[in-house]
């Protein structure tokens, strides 16, 4: 970790509030899918265990495909819409330092969060075509962004990150390594 060079200012400081790109958003979405499905799986296990404890019969929640699908869809809606409505970011987006804002850059409303979540489901049905706007549209907005009137921006404290980076490279271990280099 200490040998990772300090990234250029171009990639860190000054990016706050800029439109986020495809890779960051895709990774954030993957993290969100993993997190929401992970929580869902744990929830299903707990419900199954509780049902067995109460009724004495073993019941697998996943047996009913339609019920499972509807439950998962509702859960995913709650997962995304709630987090977007509360803070403008999901868990995955927080990890990647992204935030959903209005087209002008303000906080999104509950209605926008709900529309964006439903639109996200519609976009997924297009097998990725609806997300091409993230690369080819001037405001890097996907179809669900257009439908909800939102955009996604970088929101991580890049300046602090840069300082940490420089500090790490300035630490005693790094210095020791630099001193050893000429002799070797």
């Amino acid at each position, binding site marked *: *970790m200490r040998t*990772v060079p300090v*990234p250029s*200012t171009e*990639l*860190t400081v*000054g*990016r*706050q*509030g*800029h*439109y*986020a*790109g*495809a*890779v*960051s958003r895709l*990774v954030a979405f993957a993290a969100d899918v993993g997190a929401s499905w992970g929580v869902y799986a744990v929830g299903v296990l707990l419900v199954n265990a509780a049902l067995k404890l109460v009724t004495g019969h073993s019941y697998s929640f996943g047996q009913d495909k339609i019920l499972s699908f509807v439950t998962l869809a509702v859960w995913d809606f709650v997962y995304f819409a709630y987090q977007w409505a509360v803070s403008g970011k999901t868990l995955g987006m927080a*990890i*990647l*330092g992204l935030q959903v*804002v*209005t*087209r*002008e*850059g*303000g906080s999104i409303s509950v209605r926008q969060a709900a529309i964006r979540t439903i639109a996200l489901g519609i976009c997924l049905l297009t097998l990725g075509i609806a997300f091409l706007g993230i*690369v*080819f549209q*001037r*405001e*890097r907005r996907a179809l669900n962004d257009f439908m909800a009137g939102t*955009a996604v*921006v*970088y929101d*991580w404290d*890049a*300046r*602090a*990150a*840069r*300082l*940490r*980076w*420089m*500090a*790490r490279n*300035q*630490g*005693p271990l790094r210095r020791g390594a630099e001193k050893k280099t000429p002799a070797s």
Partner: protein
Amino acid sequence: MTPNPIGSKVEQLAQALAERIVPLIVDAIDIDALLDKVDVEKIIERVDVEKIIDRVDVEKIIDRVDVEKIIDRVDVQKIIDRVDINAIVDEIDIDKLVEQTELGSIIARSTTGVLTEVLDVIRAQGVGLDDFILRWGNRLIGRGKRIAKWPDGPPLLVERSVVAS
């Protein structure tokens, strides 16, 4: 010894003459023209400043100055009010400061955890890859240079960052 009466009369006459003539001469002289003719630079060159400084007993001057009295007269609050701290802070190159001092290590020790370090790496790499995909994606469809004119971010956020910087 009796005073010479002729001598005293001549003296009085000379005094009276001087009183009359001197103002006439002074009025007749064009001081400005005279000053124009004076080469001040040449005079300054002739003056041995070092010699003058050597003669000055600075210690003696300092001893005479009541510094406490001067400090008491200074309104420090007024000076602080006049100083634009924000302008001074803006002048400071934080990156350079961190590079040249132990400040960076202190920040690192107080704020960095393993998770923070991992997040910093992931985020910076993500931004780099975002740029790469955006650049090459648009280059492939023949509008590589046009993306330079695209807005960096939503108006409210970009204007705020410009003001902050």
